[in-house]
């Protein structure tokens, strides 16, 4: 199908964008990469009267690496962030997760910030936002505000963003040096929506085979309504990095509430999430 008619706005500056959103935001949507929005428009599940296309706005396509964070602007494509070596050097989890976001053709157009604003429970990057304690930079007619990732997501496809606000950038927090990370998901076909996925961050002390886990945290894809972080430390703190990680199972299974669908039951997704967590922890500690 084809989208319903809309008025296309193509602001060139952030000020112009905010002004346009102030006028038409209540009956409009922001268009960035459009890889989630345009399917919805094509199927006429939404018929906004205005689209505010931010693709030509100056200054929104920058990736900035700072001491404490990696800042990603609203029009940075998944593929550009995935290939950014400076970002990878300080926060490998970004690339580890981005490789699992849909297919390359989608990553070439879709934006990381857009997928966070979209807040699909099957999206990979919202879980990365919460695990890295990201800060959302929001701008709108009433000025700027910053929102912690844990306060940003309200439900599936729902965030605290008002209709006339723009998520201008996301600052992904950097982990302390030595934190090891991994991302794993299971999908019926590489690039499809994951049945379950997990991002882990593990702090260890000591070197080589003698290293011991200090703390571990995980965030999930497709098995919670909003991305949550589960602290696994009580199950794994003090244990060797060569352990089997079985102790995390109860914590994971009680911390998530997956929905059932035609692809997998709720119980299957619970077991899958626990198993992926074990494997991701084992992978992370190997990544020195």
């Amino acid at each position, binding site marked *: *199908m*084809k*989208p*319903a*008619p*809309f*008025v*296309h706005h*193509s602001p060139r500056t952030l000020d112009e964008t905010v002004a346009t959103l102030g006028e038409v935001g209540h009956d409009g949507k922001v*268009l960035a990469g*459009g*890889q989630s929005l*345009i*399917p919805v*428009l*094509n*199927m006429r599940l939404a*018929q906004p*009267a205005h*689209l505010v*296309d931010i*693709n030509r706005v100056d200054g929104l396509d920058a990736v900035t690496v700072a001491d404490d964070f990696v800042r990603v602007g609203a029009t940075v494509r998944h*593929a550009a962030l995935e290939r950014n070596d400076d970002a990878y050097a300080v926060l490998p989890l970004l690339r580890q997760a981005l490789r699992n976001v*849909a*297919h*390359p*053709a*989608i990553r*070439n*157009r879709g934006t990381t910030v857009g997928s966070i604003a979209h807040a699909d429970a099957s999206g990979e990057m919202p879980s990365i936002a919460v695990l890295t304690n990201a800060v959302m930079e929001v701008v709108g007619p009433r000025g700027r505000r910053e929102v912690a990732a844990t306060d940003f997501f309200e439900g599936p496809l729902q965030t605290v963003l008002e209709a006339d606000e723009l998520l201008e950038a996301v600052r992904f927090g950097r982990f302390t040096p030595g934190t090891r990370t991994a991302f794993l998901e299971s999908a019926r*076909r*590489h*690039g499809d929506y994951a049945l379950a996925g997990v991002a882990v961050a593990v702090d260890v002390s000591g070197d080589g085979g003698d290293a011991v886990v200090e703390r571990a945290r995980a965030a999930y894809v497709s098995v919670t309504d909003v991305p949550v972080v589960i602290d696994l430390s009580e199950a794994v703190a003090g244990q060797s990095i060569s352990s089997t990680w079985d102790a995390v199972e109860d914590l994971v299974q009680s911390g998530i509430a997956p929905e059932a669908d035609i692809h997998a039951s709720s119980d299957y997704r619970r077991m899958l999430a626990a198993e992926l967590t074990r494997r991701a922890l084992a992978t992370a500690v190997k990544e020195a």
Partner: protein
Amino acid sequence: MTTIDETLRVPVTLTVNGVAHTRTVEPRRLLSDFLRHDLRLTGTHVGCEHGVCGACTVLVDGDPMRSCLMFAVSAQGHEITTTEGLGTQEDMGPVQQAFVECHGLQCGFCTPGFITTITAFIEENPDPTEAEAREAISGNLCRCTGYQNICKAVLRAAEIRRQGATEGGDVP
């Protein structure tokens, strides 16, 4: 409900396969429909129109993207390459040649999306493994072939391209 109003139509200029075209269209005109209906470049096929099947994949500044998930108005200023720009029947590009040699198509509906996707892939990865070839085409659906011959065609296309490069010939 917004009414369809002539004043909502906008002029759009796109460079497709090296040629600039200008048409006046509604902003809701998908790039896929702009190519097919306005420019009559029917090589690009439209399957699902929500980004799943990959048949409409074109190259935007050399990168594969779904033309059904882009508005023509958003594509202004970018170089679009469709399957028509990657060779002709008399002078096929490496991927097209490989599809013929390896029987990489049956009905041919999905083929344009594979041709564009694989062209960009072997540009980035000139000597892929079979596993890499499989992953590269995971975003394109084919209901006829069972994919085995398409995987072979990816590897063969890379080979043809490498030979072309060593012979100093033009690689489209």
